Structures are given as structure tokens and as C-alpha cells.
């Protein structure tokens, strides 16, 4: 493999972005609206992602 070890790019791969947006960040729960726990969000999104990947690979 000859790809350079450093990619200077601000475009973040979706999986890296979701790692961050769903797992960390200032934790400020909205007033009432969000009662989903962070963990639920991660699981929900990963289920969605994995299902899509599986659907793609069956095509």
C-alpha cells in the first residue's frame, strides 16, 4: 500500500463523524424534546448503517 499516511482534509468520513457526533460533544439535553440516551442513538445509527452495508453487499 502506498497511500500517504496523512490525509490533510476537512472532509470527515461518515463513520468518523458519527463516532464523534453521537458519542461526544457538549452534552446539553434539550428541553424535554430529546429523551433518547446517547447510547440509544449510537445503537440506532449503527443498526441503520450496518443494515445499509448489508443491503449493498447483497446486490
Amino acid at each position, binding site marked *: *500500500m502506498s497511500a500517504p*499516511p*496523512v*490525509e*490533510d*482534509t*476537512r472532509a*470527515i*468520513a*461518515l*463513520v*468518523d*463523524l*458519527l*463516532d*464523534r*457526533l*453521537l*458519542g*461526544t*460533544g*457538549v*452534552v*446539553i*439535553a*434539550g*428541553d*424535554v*424534546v*430529546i*429523551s*433518547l440516551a*446517547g447510547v440509544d*442513538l449510537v445503537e*440506532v*445509527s*449503527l*443498526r*441503520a*448503517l*450496518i*443494515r*445499509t*452495508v*448489508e443491503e449493498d453487499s447483497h446486490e
Partner: protein
Amino acid sequence: MAEQGRYLYAVCRGLTPEAVDGIAGLGGGRLSLVAEGDLVALVSPVDLDEYGEEGLRSNLERLDWLEEAARGHDAVVQAAAAIAPTAPTRLATIFLDDEGVRRRLREREDAITAALDRVEGHEEWSVKVLTRVPDAEPEPVPVASSGAEYLRRKRQEQEDRSAGDRDAHVAAEKVHEALVTVVAASRRLPPQDPRLAGHQGTMVHNVAYLVHRDRSDDFVTLVHEQSDAYPEVVVDARGPWPPYSFAMLDEA
């Protein structure tokens, strides 16, 4: 018209409205700033049919929706982080009105200020270390002559693989030890699922590093050196990004 909520992207210090001129909020909503003391929250109106609890529950299951929301959120955070200390929020942090946003800024002022102090002038870099998958096709192996032979080979393959993983873990720790000398902080993230990330090999290291802008060049140079020093692994560094992994409050 459906009821509207306020979607919070990030909390900043010293951000002026011009900074986000020309950047649209999620769903095309207009971005605005809600100030409280030294803190400025970056918000836009969203439809509660889509972003309320019920809507989110189903929308988060749809990858196209999730991706659009994550990208839209990121675009706003990137614009803010380029010019002001920025503490990004989680995806889908929604308040009923601006007063709710202000109240929360007051309640969390100390923790948010500490987070902003920590990340001011810094950027986040991601470094992953993976086992190297051989480029060459494996030599064709004759069919096992017996069940015992087959099992022996399976065991050997397994042992080779775990030895490779062990070596990769050692290399990853060496890389990490070198990189932490120029960073302000680091945070380990779980290795990613190859089905999501699309990588080959085993991801043995997935770490976010908080790097001062003045040390970016040093950091990149070090990554190159470390990558050369440990050819048995793949070192994959990306950035610079807003400090997503370092701006969270202490109580999660």
C-alpha cells in the same frame, strides 16, 4: 405549519453573525446566535415533526437522513471552529425556544467555559493503526489431505493472525508514545467495525488527538516518521477537524 424547535450546533466564544453568513442550517433554516454572558450558541429553527422525539426515533434509522443531518451539523461546526473557540454539541440537541438555550448556557457556564479553554487554538486529528494486509495473493495451498491436517492449518492461520495483531498493538503503542509528545490531549475511541469503515486488516488503534495549530506541522511530520518506522502496520491520519472529541462536559 408544524411547531418549530431550536437546533443547537455548538457553543462558541467571540463568534459574530458574519462568521456564519451564507451557511444554511439543517433543512435550510436560518442560523442565528443566542448570546448569554461570554457564550454564544449557534442555533437554527427546525420542524419538530422531523426533529421531535417521535420523528427522530424513526429518522435516525434512515441512513440518508442521518447522513444529511450529520453533514449539515458538521458544516456549521466547521465554519464556526475556523474562527472561534467552539464546543460542538451532539447530533440532534434541540430546545423548544431560545430562552431554553439561554437557561442551559447559564446552568452549564463553568463546564462549557472549561471546554472552550481546553480547545481554543487547537484542532483534532484522527490516527488509526491497522494491521497490514498483504497485497500479494496467497500462495495456492494444496487441499488438506485429512481432517487433522485441515485443523492444523486452521490453527496455524489463527496463530499467525494473532501474532500479527500482537505486533500491530506494540507498533501502535510506539506510534502513540511518539505522538503524545506534541499533542495537548488524546482520547481513545473504539476500533471501528470494518463493515462501516470499509477498511482491511484489524484496526488496533483509533485515537483522537488534540493538537495546537502551531504544532500541526510537527504532528504531521511525526506521523510520517512513525509510519516509516513501523512498516508492518498501516498508519492512517486525518485532519484537521473541529475538536469534536475534546469539548464534552465532564459529566457525560
